[in-house]
Every structure is written in structure tokens, then in C-alpha cells.
């Protein structure tokens, strides 16, 4: 399922174009009111753009403007939408809500129930299966809405801030579940959280003021953000490699020690080590001491950032104070050691 | 209500709805003869009217379509003087203007092919129809027993029914949509209309004057034009 979208919605000041390859997950980042939800509504068929096309695997689902007038109804698109507002059906209990999707696609009752119960289990909702939505907490409600959207098993999945109301304790587990769900599914995930983008998405677009201001592979956008919003939330160091002997080993043989985010990757599995530039200390010679990672680099640039300077070298960034730059004489061409503590580095498996 | 209306100038007449046309005309005459007096009518089914009078309706005169209803008034001591019969009415066959079933006599109504509507035996015109059928020795199998003459007329004039039994005055009032067929036996079943001033009358003498007008020759002329017979045409068993 490859997805292609161009849409302009005049009264919301939205005019976007993007595409998602087959099996790819696209993260959409952007400030409030940027047009993220609008974009999903257009894809889901809930909103008719003034002009625009939604093409799924070559089939035009929406094609309006300039005399064209194709609008495949939402229920025929097989595009699932988890909206920002859970909107659970108030007259059905939790299980009834989750069974709704499969039942609507004529899945036999018993089978639909099995599907629902599996999702309820995965999202730790089994105990709540007989409750009415009015008897749930905010976070529980959001998880039920997610279960409902997933149980419908759409060909394209649109998730609008799937974890906004969730507590920090359940997020890692849920992220894990979503990784599995999204693994080989065409999907668009709206999020305010870089970590979600990093872990769930192959590519990222950043929407600001209704237009796409930045797009590209997740790692690229997050390491070298060009738009204001992305810069504000991203700018991470990412080192890709394989997991060997309890460390990440790059193709060049560099080893980065860090803490696996969730389950440790299997030996040899592709993984990525993530740490913020602020976690990187710069020395002229290796200092010893507790930090486990020391990378020899030649400095390539020193750029001012809000409140500090960003020093780049060897594909990595370090944020340091101007005073340090002065004291150490950091400048392009200078050889230095970037030091990062292992506890500052998170390692994620990359499927 | 009451004082504000300057009641001395208003005469309120409760009359059976079949009297609408002639009484409205008589009201005009009465006003002409009594300058400053306004005659107001409340037309409804006789039994409705009597029920209202029993609950204190402010009427001066009551004209009923049958004796039985008037009896309820007298039984409650609401009639100021003995009711006077002032008109009679007899039955007629009514058919649509084009008479699709080709009805010519009462006997033709016996056919089950003919869709006949009559009044229900509980209401005066129905009771009369029943007696008429008995007198003439015919058996009627109506498709509907209506509550009011107007309902019978509506069915016939719309062509829904092939024939009905109603009063002469009703056929007269219905105009061109229907045709009346006189029934020779009708003379033996006559309905009498009585009238009486009501005890609650604001101005009993004015009320009596209206009753007098109705039974006067002038009044009788108006009633006769509407198809009513004279009160003394009573024969047979209607008393």
C-alpha cells in the first residue's frame, strides 16, 4: 500500500503534499494548529479538501478540484484513523467498542471477539473489557481507542498522537506494541514526541503553518534538523551499527556502550545508539574516569545555538559553553575527543 | 367574562349544527329588528351543547336537533320555559351526482353491491334510518355507521360510498356534489327540533323574543327554504 497525498484546505490554511511508500511508517511532527489532524482527516475520507488527491496503491480515493470529483467514502477506504479525541461509542462496553471494527467487516462474531480479546490483552485492557467508556480513566480510554483502531485491521493506519494521555510508565510497552503493529504496514503517525518518531517511523515530515517545511529519513531529520520546529525538538546524535558483545559496533569498528531502551537487541541485530549533543563532553586528550565512550574526531564546525555552541566532528555533535570553546581552543581542524557516558546513550533495535 | 361584554346587547344562541345556515340568517334578521343587539351563535352537536350548558355555559337560547337531547336540558331545570317544537326534518337517500350505482328506491339499497353509509343507531339520524328501514321492510347492510350526517355526506359526495341516508336539509346544503332521492316512506319517520330559552339567560325577554322569531312565519319561511318541514308535520312515532 503506497500512499500519496496532496491537499489544500483553504479555510484551515493547509496545503500539503506527501507520500508514504509501501510498508513505510511516516511520522508527522509540527506545532499545534499546523494541520496535522487535517491531513489525516483528508486521507481517512472525513474531510473533502478544496483541491487535492489521495492515491492508495494507484487508486484515487480522493480527487477533487478543477472539475474532478472523486470521494471514495470513508468506510470503503480501509484506512483506519485513531483520532485525537478517543470518541469511544458510549453505548457499547470496551469489548463492544473493540469488536466494532471486525464486526463491521463481517467477521464472524466468535472470530471478531477473539481478535478483540487479543488486542485487549496486548494493551493490558482485559480487566476493563466489560466497562462502559464513561467508567474509564483518560489514559484507559485512549488505550481502548487504540485497540479499537488496531482491531479493525486497516490497510493504512493513521494515528493521531497515540500516546498523549498515557503515563510515562506504560509508554515503553505501548511503543513496543506499536513497533510490531507498524512494522510492515503503511502508516502515518502524528506525534509531539521525537522518541516516537525515532522508534516508529522510517521517515519524518515536519508541518508548520499548514505546509511541509521539512521531510526526509527519520535519522536525517532528527540529527540535522533544518526547520525551526524540528531543531527545537530534535538535534540528536545517532550512531547506527550492529549489537555485538553488549555494545553497538559501527561498520568502521567504533564501539558505543549504552543502555538498551527496552529489550536488548539480539547479538548481530541492527541497532542505533542515540544521545543528545548536550551529553557529549569535549576533551583534547582522553580523560579516563567513568565515561565509557571516547571518540577521536577532527572538528568540522562550531556553530552558535541558543545559549551555547554546537561543535561538530566525526558525524557527531557536542553542545558546549562558549567559555569551554575558548579555553580548549576548539575550531575546525582541531583534533579532539568526544566523550559520552554509557548511561547517557540509549540503544534501540532498528528493524 | 361577563361585565366587559356589555351583556345586555348580546344574545347567545346554542344551536345544533344542522341549523347553521337558517339560524345565521335569522340572527341577521333579529339584529336588524333589535338595533344594538348582537346575536352570537355556538353551533355544535346537540349533545356537546347540552353538556356545556350543564357545566354553566353562558347561553340564552338552546335549539336542539332532537327531543331526547332537549329532555336532558329540562331534566336539569335549565330550560326557562317548556321547549317548543319549531321544525321537522325527514330522511332522504343521497347519492353522488352521477349516481353510479343507479339507486332509485330504498329497496335498491339492499344489494350488497351498493356501498351504503348511514348514521349509527346511537345518533338521531341513525335511529331514524333504522326505523325507516323497518317501516319499509328492507334490511340495510351499511359499510359504515357514521357519527354525524356530515360524515355520511362526505363519503357520498367524494364518491366513496354509493348511497347514504341523511336529512333533506343536509342534501339541500350539500349543493351540486350530491343528489337527493325522495323516499315515500320518509313521512312516517320525522325528527322534531325543539327550542327553549335557557334559565341562565341574561335577558330572558330577549331570549324569548328570539324563540318567537324562530316559530314565527318569517322564521318558518327561512327554515323551509333550508329544507326543514313545519313543526306540526309530526306524524308517525317520532314524538
Amino acid at each position, binding site marked *: 500500500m503506497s500512499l500519496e497525498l496532496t491537499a489544500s484546505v483553504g479555510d484551515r490554511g493547509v496545503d500539503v503534499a506527501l507520500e508514504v511508500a509501501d510498508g513505510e511508517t511516516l511520522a508527522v511532527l509540527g506545532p499545534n494548529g499546523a494541520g496535522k489532524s487535517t491531513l489525516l482527516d483528508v486521507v481517512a475520507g472525513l474531510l473533502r479538501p478544496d483541491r487535492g488527491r489521495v492515491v492508495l496503491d494507484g487508486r484515487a480515493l480522493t480527487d477533487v478540484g478543477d472539475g474532478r470529483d472523486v470521494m471514495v467514502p470513508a468506510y470503503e477506504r480501509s484506512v483506519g484513523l485513531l483520532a485525537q479525541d478517543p470518541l469511544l461509542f458510549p453505548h457499547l462496553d470496551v469489548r463492544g467498542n473493540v469488536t466494532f471494527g471486525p464486526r463491521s467487516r463481517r467477521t464472524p462474531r466468535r472470530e471478531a471477539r477473539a481478535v478483540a480479546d487479543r488486542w485487549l490483552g496486548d494493551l493490558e485492557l482485559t480487566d476493563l473489557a466489560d466497562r462502559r467508556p464513561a467508567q474509564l480513566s483518560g489514559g484507559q480510554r485512549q488505550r481502548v481507542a487504540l485497540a479499537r483502531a488496531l482491531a479493525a485491521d486497516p490497510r493504512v493506519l493513521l494515528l493521531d498522537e497515540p500516546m498523549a494521555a498515557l503515563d510515562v510508565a506504560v509508554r515503553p510497552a505501548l511503543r513496543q506494541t506499536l513497533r510490531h503493529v507498524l512494522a510492515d504496514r503503511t502508516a502515518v503517525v502524528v506525534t509531539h514526541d521525537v522518541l516516537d518518531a525515532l522508534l516508529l517511523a522510517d521517515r519524518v515530515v515536519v508541518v508548520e503553518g499548514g505546509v511541509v517545511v521539512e521531510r526526509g529519513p527519520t535519522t536525517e531529520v532528527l540529527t540535522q534538523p533544518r526547520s525551526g520546529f524540528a531543531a527545537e525538538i530534535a538535534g540528536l546524535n545517532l550512531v547506527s551499527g550492529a549489537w555485538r558483545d553488549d555494545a553497538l559496533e559501527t561498520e568502521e569498528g567504533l564501539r558505543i556502550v549504552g543502555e538498551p531502551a527496552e529489550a536488548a537487541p539480539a547479538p548481530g541485530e541492527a541497532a542505533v545508539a542515540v544521545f543528545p549533543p548536550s551529553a557529549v563532553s569535549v576533551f583534547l586528550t582522553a580523560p579516563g574516569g567513568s565515561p565509557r565512550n571516547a571518540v577521536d574526531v577532527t572538528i568540522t564546525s562550531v556553530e552558535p545555538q541558543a545559549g551555547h555552541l554546537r561543535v561538530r566532528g566525526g558525524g557527531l555533535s557536542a553542545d558546549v559553553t562558549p567559555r569551554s570553546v575558548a579555553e580548549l581552543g576548539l575550531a575546525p581542524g582541531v583534533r579532539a575527543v568526544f566523550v559520552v557516558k554509557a548511561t547517557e546513550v540509549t540503544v534501540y533495535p532498528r528493524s | 367574562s361577563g361585565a366587559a361584554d356589555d351583556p345586555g346587547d348580546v344574545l*347567545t344562541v346554542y344551536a345544533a349544527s344542522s341549523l347553521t345556515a337558517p339560524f345565521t340568517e335569522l340572527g341577521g334578521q333579529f339584529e336588524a329588528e333589535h338595533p344594538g343587539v348582537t346575536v352570537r351563535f355556538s353551533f355544535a352537536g346537540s349533545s356537546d351543547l347540552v353538556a356545556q350548558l350543564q*357545566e354553566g355555559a353562558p347561553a340564552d337560547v338552546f335549539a336542539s336537533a332532537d327531543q331526547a337531547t332537549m329532555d336532558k336540558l329540562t331534566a336539569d331545570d335549565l330550560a326557562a320555559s317548556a321547549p317548543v317544537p319549531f321544525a321537522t326534518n325527514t330522511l332522504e337517500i343521497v347519492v353522488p351526482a352521477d349516481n353510479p350505482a343507479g339507486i332509485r328506491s330504498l329497496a335498491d339499497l339492499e344489494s350488497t353491491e351498493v356501498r351504503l353509509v348511514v348514521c349509527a343507531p346511537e345518533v338521531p339520524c341513525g335511529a331514524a334510518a333504522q326505523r325507516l328501514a323497518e317501516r319499509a321492510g328492507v334490511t340495510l347492510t351499511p359499510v359504515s355507521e357514521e357519527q354525524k350526517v356530515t360524515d355520511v355526506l362526505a363519503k357520498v359526495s367524494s364518491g366513496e360510498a354509493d348511497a347514504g341516508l341523511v336529512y333533506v336539509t343536509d342534501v339541500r346544503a350539500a349543493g351540486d356534489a350530491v343528489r337527493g332521492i325522495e323516499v315515500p316512506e320518509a313521512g312516517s319517520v320525522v325528527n322534531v327540533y325543539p327550542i327553549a330559552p335557557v334559565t341562565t339567560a341574561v335577558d330572558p325577554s330577549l331570549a324569548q323574543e328570539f324563540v318567537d322569531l324562530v316559530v314565527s312565519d318569517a322564521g318558518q319561511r327561512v327554515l323551509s327554504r333550508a329544507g326543514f318541514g313545519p313543526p306540526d308535520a309530526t306524524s308517525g312515532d317520532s314524538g
Partner: protein
Amino acid sequence: MSDPRSRLGVPRWILLPALLGAGFVLLPLVAIVARTPWGRFGELLTSQASQDALWLSLRTATASTLLCLVLGVPMALVLARSSYRLLGVVRSLVLLPLVLPPVVGGIALLYTFGRRGLLGQTMEVLGIQVAFSTAAVVLAQTFVALPFLVVSLEGALRTAGERYEAVAATLGARPTTVLRRVTLPLVLPGLVSGTVLAFARALGEFGATITFAGSLQGRTRTLPLEIYLRRETDAEGAVALSLVLVVVAVLVIGVAGQRRSAL
């Protein structure tokens, strides 16, 4: 720019019964219009009796609709928002005028407000005589129309729920403010529906009126009574006159509909 939100619409097959229903309601109206003696329409309309009746009908139906609102909105609120056991019974009882044949309703009113009625004597002492006055017409119309307002408003209130009312309370709004600024605006479509129903029912009311209020021109003879009376002597004219009633209703409902879809 028009609303770009795409209409989800309704299942297409539903148009069939909907059109059938519309046809079932509209055809008889067409039939009436087709048979109306239009030549006499003007004369009918301008006759003193018709004008008195129309004017009286409009006045009384408006008055009784207002009375229905004053009494019915509180009743619907109490029924929808309180949770006493007894309310079930009260609800059933309050809705009874719905099924009572209107004439019986009129009799019941006579038994209550008439001279020999439950309250009649008390009222007579006070010098109030309701029956057979224009006030009686209003009472009769209110009696039959009230349950329509109550039932449909109660349904709307239950559908709307109480969540916004709770929010308003936490913002410091007293119940009266909540009612005026939250509850009623939220159920406006239901309130408009209910008011239209009540007005329509009051405007068309016949049986209870003739029984309780009588039929005096200019005083208690509303348009339906006039139509009924005219039918005795002039069936076609009666039907034509009822079209006047229909036109009035179209205007009222049309205007109400406008207001509602403007929301």
C-alpha cells in the same frame, strides 16, 4: 466557502422509505390543493367569520405555546434530570393527555374548571369563570399540546447528557445560569422541535376546544372549529379554509426550521 467536511450521508436504500413516507404525506396535500375551489378562495379568506377565526387561532395557539413552554420546559427538565423512583409514574401520568381523545380531554377540563368541576366552585367564588371564554380555548389547547413539548424535549435532554452542565458548574455557574446558557442552547434543536409540535397541535386542536370552550365567533371559534362548522353547509369551502391553516403552519414551521438549520 461551503463546509468542506464531507457528508457521511445515510445509507442509500433509506431514500426509498423516506421518499415513500414523503409521498404518503404529500400526496393527500396535493389532492386537497387540486380540489380546492381557488376561485372562491379570496372570498373565503376575507369573510368576517374566517378572519375572526384565523386571528383567534393565531392568538390562542401562540398563547398556549407560550404556556406550554413555561410549564413544559420545567417538566421535561425535572423528568430528564432527576432520578427519583416515583418519576416513572409521574411521567406516564403526565403524558396521558396524549392518548385521551380530545373530546374526553375537554370533558375532563369541564369536570375540573366547569361550574360543577373540582375547582369550579372555588373559582366561581373568586369571580373567575374560565369555561367558554377565550381563556378556555387556551387551556384546552395547552392541555392537549403540553405533552408533545414535554416528551420531545425530554428525549433531547437525555440525548444531550449532562457533561457540559458539570463543566459549567465548576466555572461557578448557578443552576439557573447553566439552564439558560448551557442546557437550553445545547438542546435547541429538540426545543424547537417540541415547540413546533406543540404549536401545531394547538393550532389544529378541535375536540377539546369545542367541548370545553364552545364555539362562539370571535371568542372561542378557532379556525378548526370554523372549518368544522362550515363543513355542515359548504364542504368544499371547509377544505379550502383548512388550506389557510396549512399555509400558516408552513410559515411557522419554515421559520422555525430556518432558525434551527442556522445553528
